[in-house]
Protein backbone atom coordinates (compact mmCIF):
# COMPACT_ATOMS: atom_id res chain seq x y z
CA UNK A 1 0.00 0.00 0.00
CA UNK A 2 1.48 3.31 -1.09
CA UNK A 3 1.86 5.70 1.84
CA UNK A 4 4.41 8.23 0.65
CA UNK A 5 3.30 10.58 -2.10
CA UNK A 6 4.78 13.69 -3.70
CA UNK A 7 3.77 16.94 -1.97
CA UNK A 8 0.52 18.49 -3.27
CA UNK A 9 2.55 21.44 -4.52
CA UNK A 10 4.80 19.10 -6.53
CA UNK A 11 1.78 17.46 -8.16
CA UNK A 12 0.42 20.88 -9.02
CA UNK A 13 3.73 22.01 -10.52
CA UNK A 14 3.95 18.78 -12.46
CA UNK A 15 0.49 19.43 -13.93
CA UNK A 16 1.56 22.96 -14.83
CA UNK A 17 4.64 21.65 -16.58
CA UNK A 18 6.84 23.68 -14.24
CA UNK A 19 9.07 20.94 -12.82
CA UNK A 20 12.59 19.98 -13.87
CA UNK A 21 12.68 16.99 -16.24
CA UNK A 22 14.12 14.68 -13.55
CA UNK A 23 11.43 15.56 -11.04
CA UNK A 24 8.77 15.26 -13.73
CA UNK A 25 9.93 11.74 -14.61
CA UNK A 26 9.79 10.67 -10.96
CA UNK A 27 6.35 12.20 -10.33
CA UNK A 28 4.99 10.74 -13.55
CA UNK A 29 6.34 7.27 -12.66
CA UNK A 30 4.79 7.54 -9.19
CA UNK A 31 1.44 8.42 -10.78
CA UNK A 32 1.70 5.26 -12.90
CA UNK A 33 1.61 3.34 -9.63
CA UNK A 34 -0.73 5.56 -7.60
CA UNK A 35 -4.36 6.06 -8.60
CA UNK A 36 -4.79 8.80 -6.01
CA UNK A 37 -2.05 11.09 -7.35
CA UNK A 38 -2.98 10.22 -10.92
CA UNK A 39 -6.44 11.58 -10.21
CA UNK A 40 -5.06 14.75 -8.60
CA UNK A 41 -2.83 15.39 -11.63
CA UNK A 42 -5.67 14.74 -14.06
CA UNK A 43 -7.96 17.23 -12.34
CA UNK A 44 -5.20 19.78 -12.00
CA UNK A 45 -4.17 19.38 -15.64
CA UNK A 46 -7.70 20.04 -16.85
CA UNK A 47 -7.84 23.23 -14.78
CA UNK A 48 -4.41 24.33 -15.94
CA UNK A 49 -5.23 23.68 -19.59
CA UNK A 50 -8.34 25.80 -19.40
CA UNK A 51 -6.50 28.51 -17.51
CA UNK A 52 -3.23 28.60 -19.45
CA UNK A 53 -4.81 28.33 -22.88
CA UNK A 54 -7.32 31.05 -22.05
CA UNK A 55 -4.72 33.73 -22.48
CA UNK A 56 -6.06 35.52 -25.50
CA UNK A 57 -3.16 36.11 -27.87
CA UNK A 58 -2.78 39.76 -28.62
CA UNK A 59 -0.48 42.10 -30.49
CA UNK A 60 0.34 39.80 -33.35
CA UNK A 61 2.87 40.98 -35.81
CA UNK A 62 2.45 40.16 -39.46
CA UNK A 63 5.65 38.18 -39.11
CA UNK A 64 4.26 35.79 -36.48
CA UNK A 65 1.06 35.42 -38.44
CA UNK A 66 3.07 34.33 -41.48
CA UNK A 67 5.16 31.92 -39.42
CA UNK A 68 2.02 30.27 -38.09
CA UNK A 69 0.53 30.14 -41.59
CA UNK A 70 3.49 28.31 -43.01
CA UNK A 71 3.63 26.05 -39.95
CA UNK A 72 0.02 25.03 -40.56
CA UNK A 73 0.75 24.34 -44.20
CA UNK A 74 3.75 22.16 -43.38
CA UNK A 75 1.96 20.19 -40.66
CA UNK A 76 -0.92 19.19 -42.91
CA UNK A 77 1.64 17.71 -45.33
CA UNK A 78 2.63 15.19 -42.65
CA UNK A 79 1.34 11.62 -42.95
CA UNK A 80 -0.85 10.10 -40.29
CA UNK A 81 1.20 8.48 -37.50
CA UNK A 82 1.70 4.83 -38.22
CA UNK A 83 0.65 2.49 -35.47
CA UNK A 84 3.56 1.30 -33.34
CA UNK A 85 5.21 -1.76 -34.76
CA UNK A 86 5.68 -4.24 -31.96
CA UNK A 87 9.46 -4.08 -32.41
CA UNK A 88 9.40 -0.39 -31.54
CA UNK A 89 7.49 -0.76 -28.30
CA UNK A 90 10.02 -0.78 -25.44
CA UNK A 91 9.96 -3.76 -23.09
CA UNK A 92 7.83 -3.39 -19.98
CA UNK A 93 9.92 -5.50 -17.62
CA UNK A 94 13.51 -5.83 -16.46
CA UNK A 95 15.22 -8.97 -15.24
CA UNK A 96 17.60 -9.70 -12.39
CA UNK A 97 18.76 -13.09 -11.22
CA UNK A 98 15.98 -14.88 -13.08
CA UNK A 99 13.23 -12.65 -11.70
CA UNK A 100 11.10 -10.31 -13.82
CA UNK A 101 9.97 -6.95 -12.53
CA UNK A 102 7.25 -4.87 -14.15
CA UNK A 103 8.43 -1.28 -14.72
CA UNK A 104 6.09 1.75 -14.49
CA UNK A 105 5.03 3.01 -17.91
CA UNK A 106 6.94 6.31 -17.68
CA UNK A 107 10.24 4.51 -17.14
CA UNK A 108 9.80 1.94 -19.91
CA UNK A 109 11.18 4.16 -22.64
CA UNK A 110 14.50 4.18 -20.76
CA UNK A 111 14.83 0.39 -20.47
CA UNK A 112 16.69 0.12 -23.82
CA UNK A 113 19.39 2.43 -22.37
CA UNK A 114 19.90 0.27 -19.30
CA UNK A 115 23.44 -0.93 -18.57
CA UNK A 116 24.50 -4.20 -16.98
CA UNK A 117 23.78 -5.01 -13.38
CA UNK A 118 26.81 -4.67 -11.16
CA UNK A 119 27.17 -6.04 -7.66
CA UNK A 120 28.01 -3.61 -4.90
CA UNK A 121 28.84 -3.99 -1.26
CA UNK A 122 26.09 -5.18 1.03
CA UNK A 123 23.94 -7.38 -1.23
CA UNK A 124 23.20 -4.49 -3.53
CA UNK A 125 22.84 -4.53 -7.28
CA UNK A 126 22.61 -1.54 -9.53
CA UNK A 127 22.01 -0.98 -13.22
CA UNK A 128 22.46 2.50 -14.69
CA UNK A 129 19.84 4.03 -16.96
CA UNK A 130 20.24 7.01 -19.26
CA UNK A 131 17.26 9.29 -18.68
CA UNK A 132 18.85 12.00 -20.79
CA UNK A 133 18.62 14.57 -18.02
CA UNK A 134 21.12 15.80 -15.47
CA UNK A 135 21.55 13.36 -12.61
CA UNK A 136 22.48 9.69 -12.37
CA UNK A 137 19.57 7.28 -12.61
CA UNK A 138 19.78 3.65 -11.52
CA UNK A 139 17.65 0.67 -10.83
CA UNK A 140 18.85 -0.56 -7.44
CA UNK A 141 18.03 -3.93 -5.97
CA UNK A 142 18.56 -4.63 -2.29
CA UNK A 143 18.72 -8.36 -1.68
CA UNK A 144 17.09 -9.77 1.48
CA UNK A 145 18.98 -8.28 4.42
CA UNK A 146 20.95 -6.02 2.08
CA UNK A 147 21.17 -2.26 2.05
CA UNK A 148 23.15 0.92 1.65
CA UNK A 149 25.43 2.06 4.50
CA UNK A 150 24.33 5.12 6.45
CA UNK A 151 24.73 8.20 4.28
CA UNK A 152 23.65 11.74 3.74
CA UNK A 153 23.26 13.65 0.47
CA UNK A 154 25.09 16.49 -1.19
CA UNK A 155 22.18 17.20 -3.51
CA UNK A 156 18.84 15.55 -4.14
CA UNK A 157 18.00 11.88 -4.09
CA UNK A 158 14.64 10.77 -5.49
CA UNK A 159 13.57 7.19 -4.98
CA UNK A 160 10.55 5.27 -6.24
CA UNK A 161 9.87 1.81 -4.82
CA UNK A 162 9.02 -0.52 -7.69
CA UNK A 163 8.77 -3.89 -5.98
CA UNK A 164 9.09 -5.14 -2.41
CA UNK A 165 9.69 -3.19 0.79
CA UNK A 166 12.54 -1.49 2.60
CA UNK A 167 13.24 0.49 5.74
CA UNK A 168 15.70 3.37 6.09
CA UNK A 169 15.57 4.00 9.83
CA UNK A 170 13.16 6.88 9.22
CA UNK A 171 10.23 5.09 7.60
CA UNK A 172 9.10 1.83 6.12
CA UNK A 173 8.41 1.94 2.38
CA UNK A 174 6.48 -0.26 -0.03
CA UNK A 175 5.80 -0.41 -3.76
CA UNK A 176 4.73 2.93 -5.22
CA UNK A 177 6.23 5.03 -2.43
CA UNK A 178 8.03 8.20 -3.51
CA UNK A 179 10.91 9.44 -1.35
CA UNK A 180 12.72 12.77 -1.71
CA UNK A 181 15.92 13.29 0.31
CA UNK A 182 18.53 16.04 0.45
CA UNK A 183 21.39 17.44 2.56
CA UNK A 184 19.16 17.47 5.61
CA UNK A 185 18.50 13.75 5.64
CA UNK A 186 20.74 10.95 6.85
CA UNK A 187 19.37 7.47 6.39
CA UNK A 188 20.29 3.79 6.12
CA UNK A 189 18.18 1.98 3.52
CA UNK A 190 17.89 -1.74 4.18
CA UNK A 191 15.50 -4.40 2.95
CA UNK A 192 14.34 -7.23 5.17
CA UNK A 193 11.80 -8.30 2.60
CA UNK A 194 12.31 -12.03 1.90
CA UNK A 195 12.10 -11.16 -1.81
CA UNK A 196 14.32 -8.09 -1.58
CA UNK A 197 13.39 -4.67 -2.90
CA UNK A 198 13.74 -2.98 -6.29
CA UNK A 199 13.82 0.80 -6.45
CA UNK A 200 14.47 3.44 -9.11
CA UNK A 201 16.72 6.21 -7.89
CA UNK A 202 18.08 9.50 -9.23
CA UNK A 203 20.95 11.41 -7.62
CA UNK A 204 22.59 14.66 -8.70
CA UNK A 205 25.61 14.50 -6.37
CA UNK A 206 27.63 11.69 -4.79
CA UNK A 207 26.34 10.18 -1.58
CA UNK A 208 28.35 10.90 1.52
CA UNK A 209 28.78 7.96 3.86
CA UNK A 210 28.58 8.93 7.48
CA UNK A 211 29.38 6.05 9.76
CA UNK A 212 32.10 3.62 10.75
CA UNK A 213 33.90 1.53 8.22
CA UNK A 214 31.58 2.73 5.44
CA UNK A 215 33.36 6.07 5.55
CA UNK A 216 36.20 4.25 3.86
CA UNK A 217 33.98 4.16 0.79
CA UNK A 218 34.09 7.94 0.39
CA UNK A 219 37.71 8.17 -0.82
CA UNK A 220 37.49 4.98 -2.84
CA UNK A 221 35.17 6.43 -5.41
CA UNK A 222 37.73 9.04 -6.31
CA UNK A 223 40.89 7.01 -5.94
CA UNK A 224 39.76 3.86 -7.67
CA UNK A 225 36.98 4.64 -10.06
CA UNK A 226 37.95 7.67 -12.02
Amino acid at each position, binding site marked *: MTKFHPAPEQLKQFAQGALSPVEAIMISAHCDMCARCQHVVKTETAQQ*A*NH*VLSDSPSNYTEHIRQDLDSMLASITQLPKARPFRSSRIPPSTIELD*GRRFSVPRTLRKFIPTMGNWSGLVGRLWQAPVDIGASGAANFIYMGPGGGVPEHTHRGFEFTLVIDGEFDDGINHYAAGDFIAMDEEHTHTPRSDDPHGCLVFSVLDQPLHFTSGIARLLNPF*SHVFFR
Partner: protein
Amino acid sequence: MLVGIPLEQSNSVVKPKDCAGEMSEYIVAVAEGRCKRSFARVFSYFAPRLRSYALKQMGNEALAMELVQDTMSNVWQKAHLFNAEKGSPSTWIFTIARNIRFDMLRKLQNRKEDICSDDLWPVLCEQTADANETSLDEQITLEQIGFMFESLPIKQKAVIEAIYIDGKSQQEVADELSIPLGTVKSRTRLALQRLKGMLQDHD
Protein backbone atom coordinates in the same frame (compact mmCIF):
# COMPACT_ATOMS: atom_id res chain seq x y z
CA MET B 1 -6.95 24.33 -50.19
CA LEU B 2 -5.89 26.52 -47.34
CA VAL B 3 -5.57 30.22 -47.60
CA GLY B 4 -4.13 31.51 -44.35
CA ILE B 5 -5.57 31.12 -40.91
CA PRO B 6 -8.55 33.16 -39.92
CA LEU B 7 -7.25 34.63 -36.67
CA GLU B 8 -10.57 36.28 -35.96
CA GLN B 9 -10.73 38.74 -33.12
CA SER B 10 -13.77 36.92 -31.75
CA ASN B 11 -11.65 33.80 -31.40
CA SER B 12 -9.46 35.40 -28.79
CA VAL B 13 -12.15 35.83 -26.17
CA VAL B 14 -13.61 32.33 -26.33
CA LYS B 15 -12.45 30.23 -23.35
CA PRO B 16 -11.23 26.69 -24.06
CA LYS B 17 -14.07 25.11 -22.13
CA ASP B 18 -16.65 27.15 -24.05
CA CYS B 19 -15.57 25.72 -27.39
CA ALA B 20 -14.74 22.19 -26.22
CA GLY B 21 -17.67 20.56 -28.03
CA GLU B 22 -16.91 22.33 -31.28
CA MET B 23 -13.17 21.55 -31.10
CA SER B 24 -13.88 17.91 -30.29
CA GLU B 25 -15.89 17.61 -33.50
CA TYR B 26 -13.06 19.13 -35.53
CA ILE B 27 -10.51 16.74 -34.05
CA VAL B 28 -12.77 13.78 -34.77
CA ALA B 29 -13.08 15.02 -38.37
CA VAL B 30 -9.29 15.13 -38.62
CA ALA B 31 -9.06 11.61 -37.21
CA GLU B 32 -11.69 10.20 -39.53
CA GLY B 33 -11.16 12.10 -42.75
CA ARG B 34 -7.82 13.96 -42.52
CA CYS B 35 -9.93 17.11 -42.85
CA LYS B 36 -7.56 20.04 -43.35
CA ARG B 37 -10.28 22.60 -42.90
CA SER B 38 -11.18 21.21 -39.48
CA PHE B 39 -7.55 21.08 -38.51
CA ALA B 40 -7.12 24.70 -39.53
CA ARG B 41 -9.88 25.62 -37.06
CA VAL B 42 -8.16 23.73 -34.25
CA PHE B 43 -4.83 25.22 -35.23
CA SER B 44 -6.02 28.78 -35.42
CA TYR B 45 -7.54 28.51 -31.97
CA PHE B 46 -4.76 26.62 -30.15
CA ALA B 47 -1.49 27.49 -31.90
CA PRO B 48 -1.41 31.17 -30.84
CA ARG B 49 -2.38 30.22 -27.29
CA LEU B 50 0.26 27.51 -27.12
CA ARG B 51 2.78 30.03 -28.39
CA SER B 52 1.96 32.44 -25.54
CA TYR B 53 2.24 29.62 -22.99
CA ALA B 54 5.51 28.34 -24.51
CA LEU B 55 7.01 31.80 -24.65
CA LYS B 56 6.34 32.25 -20.94
CA GLN B 57 7.76 28.81 -20.12
CA MET B 58 10.79 28.74 -22.40
CA GLY B 59 11.48 32.47 -22.69
CA ASN B 60 12.73 32.02 -26.24
CA GLU B 61 10.84 32.61 -29.49
CA ALA B 62 12.55 29.82 -31.46
CA LEU B 63 11.98 27.21 -28.74
CA ALA B 64 8.41 28.40 -28.29
CA MET B 65 7.66 27.96 -31.99
CA GLU B 66 9.31 24.55 -31.93
CA LEU B 67 7.03 23.54 -29.06
CA VAL B 68 3.97 24.77 -30.98
CA GLN B 69 5.03 22.95 -34.13
CA ASP B 70 5.73 19.64 -32.37
CA THR B 71 2.50 19.83 -30.39
CA MET B 72 0.27 20.66 -33.34
CA SER B 73 2.01 18.04 -35.50
CA ASN B 74 1.05 15.49 -32.85
CA VAL B 75 -2.54 16.69 -32.95
CA TRP B 76 -2.62 16.27 -36.73
CA GLN B 77 -0.90 12.91 -36.77
CA LYS B 78 -2.46 11.34 -33.69
CA ALA B 79 -5.96 12.77 -33.77
CA HIS B 80 -7.28 9.21 -33.65
CA LEU B 81 -5.93 8.92 -30.09
CA PHE B 82 -8.17 11.74 -28.86
CA ASN B 83 -11.06 10.53 -26.74
CA ALA B 84 -13.62 13.18 -25.82
CA GLU B 85 -14.93 11.01 -23.00
CA LYS B 86 -11.55 11.08 -21.27
CA GLY B 87 -11.01 14.82 -21.41
CA SER B 88 -11.50 18.05 -23.28
CA PRO B 89 -9.49 19.03 -26.37
CA SER B 90 -7.63 21.69 -24.37
CA THR B 91 -6.59 19.14 -21.72
CA TRP B 92 -5.43 16.72 -24.40
CA ILE B 93 -3.45 19.33 -26.31
CA PHE B 94 -2.01 20.89 -23.17
CA THR B 95 -0.86 17.45 -21.97
CA ILE B 96 0.89 16.83 -25.31
CA ALA B 97 2.59 20.24 -25.07
CA ARG B 98 3.66 19.58 -21.48
CA ASN B 99 5.27 16.25 -22.38
CA ILE B 100 7.04 17.75 -25.37
CA ARG B 101 8.35 20.56 -23.19
CA PHE B 102 9.81 18.05 -20.70
CA ASP B 103 11.48 16.21 -23.58
CA MET B 104 12.88 19.44 -25.01
CA LEU B 105 14.30 20.43 -21.64
CA ARG B 106 15.86 17.01 -21.22
CA LYS B 107 17.58 17.31 -24.57
CA LEU B 108 18.82 20.80 -23.70
CA GLN B 109 20.22 19.56 -20.38
CA ASN B 110 21.62 16.39 -21.80
CA ARG B 111 25.39 16.24 -22.15
CA LYS B 112 25.64 19.64 -20.56
CA GLU B 113 26.94 17.96 -17.46
CA ASP B 114 28.66 14.72 -18.17
CA ILE B 115 28.66 13.07 -14.80
CA CYS B 116 29.78 9.53 -14.43
CA SER B 117 27.47 7.26 -12.52
CA ASP B 118 30.37 5.75 -10.58
CA ASP B 119 31.24 9.17 -9.24
CA LEU B 120 27.73 9.61 -7.96
CA TRP B 121 27.38 6.27 -6.37
CA PRO B 122 30.71 5.82 -4.69
CA VAL B 123 30.24 2.25 -3.59
CA LEU B 124 32.78 -0.27 -4.70
CA CYS B 125 31.67 -1.59 -8.02
CA GLU B 126 32.50 -5.16 -8.85
CA GLN B 127 31.93 -5.04 -12.57
CA THR B 128 30.17 -8.13 -13.77
CA ALA B 129 28.91 -8.62 -17.26
CA ASP B 130 25.73 -10.22 -16.11
CA ALA B 131 24.13 -10.56 -12.72
CA ASN B 132 23.19 -14.10 -13.59
CA GLU B 133 26.83 -15.11 -13.81
CA THR B 134 27.55 -14.38 -10.19
CA SER B 135 25.48 -15.58 -7.32
CA LEU B 136 24.15 -12.95 -4.98
CA ASP B 137 26.27 -14.44 -2.19
CA GLU B 138 29.59 -13.84 -3.91
CA GLN B 139 29.56 -10.09 -3.52
CA ILE B 140 32.10 -8.23 -1.50
CA THR B 141 30.69 -7.12 1.84
CA LEU B 142 31.42 -4.27 4.16
CA GLU B 143 32.73 -6.86 6.62
CA GLN B 144 35.26 -7.97 4.02
CA ILE B 145 36.36 -4.40 3.48
CA GLY B 146 36.73 -4.12 7.24
CA PHE B 147 38.85 -7.26 7.18
CA MET B 148 41.09 -5.85 4.43
CA PHE B 149 41.42 -2.68 6.44
CA GLU B 150 42.42 -4.66 9.54
CA SER B 151 45.10 -6.46 7.54
CA LEU B 152 46.95 -3.22 6.72
CA PRO B 153 50.31 -2.64 8.44
CA ILE B 154 49.62 -0.91 11.73
CA LYS B 155 51.22 2.42 10.74
CA GLN B 156 49.25 2.66 7.50
CA LYS B 157 46.06 1.67 9.27
CA ALA B 158 46.47 4.47 11.83
CA VAL B 159 46.82 7.06 9.07
CA ILE B 160 43.85 5.78 7.04
CA GLU B 161 41.68 5.58 10.13
CA ALA B 162 42.51 9.15 11.19
CA ILE B 163 41.93 10.60 7.72
CA TYR B 164 39.01 8.66 6.33
CA ILE B 165 37.10 7.50 9.36
CA ASP B 166 37.79 10.34 11.80
CA GLY B 167 37.86 12.92 9.01
CA LYS B 168 41.14 14.60 10.01
CA SER B 169 43.39 16.48 7.60
CA GLN B 170 46.78 15.10 6.66
CA GLN B 171 48.46 17.97 8.50
CA GLU B 172 46.51 17.22 11.68
CA VAL B 173 47.57 13.61 11.49
CA ALA B 174 51.21 14.62 10.98
CA ASP B 175 51.05 16.91 14.04
CA GLU B 176 49.37 14.29 16.19
CA LEU B 177 51.78 11.52 15.32
CA SER B 178 54.78 13.89 15.26
CA ILE B 179 55.83 12.70 11.82
CA PRO B 180 56.54 14.73 8.66
CA LEU B 181 53.61 15.53 6.35
CA GLY B 182 55.42 13.72 3.54
CA THR B 183 55.37 10.52 5.58
CA VAL B 184 51.61 10.82 6.14
CA LYS B 185 51.14 11.27 2.41
CA SER B 186 53.25 8.30 1.44
CA ARG B 187 51.61 6.03 4.05
CA THR B 188 48.19 7.05 2.74
CA ARG B 189 49.23 6.34 -0.83
CA LEU B 190 50.72 2.95 0.05
CA ALA B 191 47.66 1.95 2.08
CA LEU B 192 45.23 2.86 -0.70
CA GLN B 193 47.36 1.00 -3.24
CA ARG B 194 47.30 -2.04 -1.01
CA LEU B 195 43.54 -1.87 -0.52
CA LYS B 196 43.08 -1.47 -4.24
CA GLY B 197 45.22 -4.56 -4.84
CA MET B 198 43.20 -6.58 -2.34
CA LEU B 199 39.95 -5.52 -3.98
CA GLN B 200 41.20 -6.55 -7.41
CA ASP B 201 42.33 -9.93 -6.08
CA HIS B 202 38.96 -10.49 -4.49
CA ASP B 203 37.42 -12.35 -7.45
